């Protein structure tokens, strides 16, 4: 497990200020730098440093479920001795973007995305045939929380 990373107060301010409402203007990093009292080059260097340390995944978007394609949560009950091996088989699929072990008989939890629902079922069938285990498919019915990021 990678070590816990420390961040500077300036890095914390940056991470807390721009998890949403990213500037939509020609020079967004310059605008962010202005707001934080830095110059653009220093801010870009800080973002690259956070990315190299694994703290910043990317500057990116989260998309409303089922607007740009189909997605679902799914889970497998894997015999514990096989967990790492089966997890690697599941992670190997490009359509899997999150994959976690959790404490339950259903001990492997993953999110699948595809162009449409048939693509999800195809990926689940592939997982069943590769692993010999039958996944449960738990598609989203309603969301109660808007993702606003996470204050550090």
């Amino acid at each position, binding site marked *: 497990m990678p070590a816990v990373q420390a961040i500077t107060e300036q890095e914390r301010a940056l991470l807390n200020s721009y998890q949403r409402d990213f500037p939509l203007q020609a020079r967004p990093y310059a605008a962010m730098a202005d707001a934080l009292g830095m110059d653009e080059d220093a801010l870009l260097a800080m973002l690259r440093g956070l990315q190299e340390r694994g703290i910043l995944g990317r500057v990116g978007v989260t998309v409303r479920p089922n607007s740009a394609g189909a997605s679902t949560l799914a889970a497998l009950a894997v015999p514990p001795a096989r967990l790492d091996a089966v997890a690697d088989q599941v992670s190997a699929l490009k*359509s899997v973007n999150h994959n976690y072990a959790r404490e339950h008989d259903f001990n492997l939890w993953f999110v699948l995305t595809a162009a449409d629902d048939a693509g999800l079922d195809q990926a689940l069938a592939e997982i069943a045939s590769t692993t010999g285990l039958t996944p449960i498919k738990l598609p989203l019915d309603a969301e109660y929380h808007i993702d606003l990021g996470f204050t550090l």
Partner: protein
Amino acid sequence: MIEIADKDHQLLARLADGLPLVSRPYAEMGAELGLSEDDVIARLRHLVDSGIIRRFGLIVRHHELGYRANAMSVWDVPDDEVDALGADLAAYPFVTLCYRRRRQPPRWPYNLFAMVHGKERAHVLSQIAQLNEQLGLEHLRHHVLFSTKRYKQSAARFGDRGLAKAG
């Protein structure tokens, strides 16, 4: 499913690799996709305003910062109560995601999910206990599933139309 324009779809696929860390990132993305800088900005603004882009910004990997107690809390709630309860749960600041999912009886009876992330397992458990007590959930079938290992965490790649890059 809502249909979105091909160019918008290409923009979203490109953003799965991250907005370039250069002075004029929208111009650079536009050059790759055959769009002007202004067009890229306008299209992204429209995707944000229409709610297709839920959040645009820094995607933080919390695990690296020590937020390693990641609990998925699930309840089996009667169908006619789940929407009201979901709204109540989502109002708690420490609930980072909350949604209703389809049950898969008999293997999976739970339909309401709430995620709580923290640095300490005991603290996360006390927050979940607070939910159960304050919202009167103690009588419901319930389980807390902490994550024990993260195998993969990356951007969603919808993979149609041959646009998503290998990741």
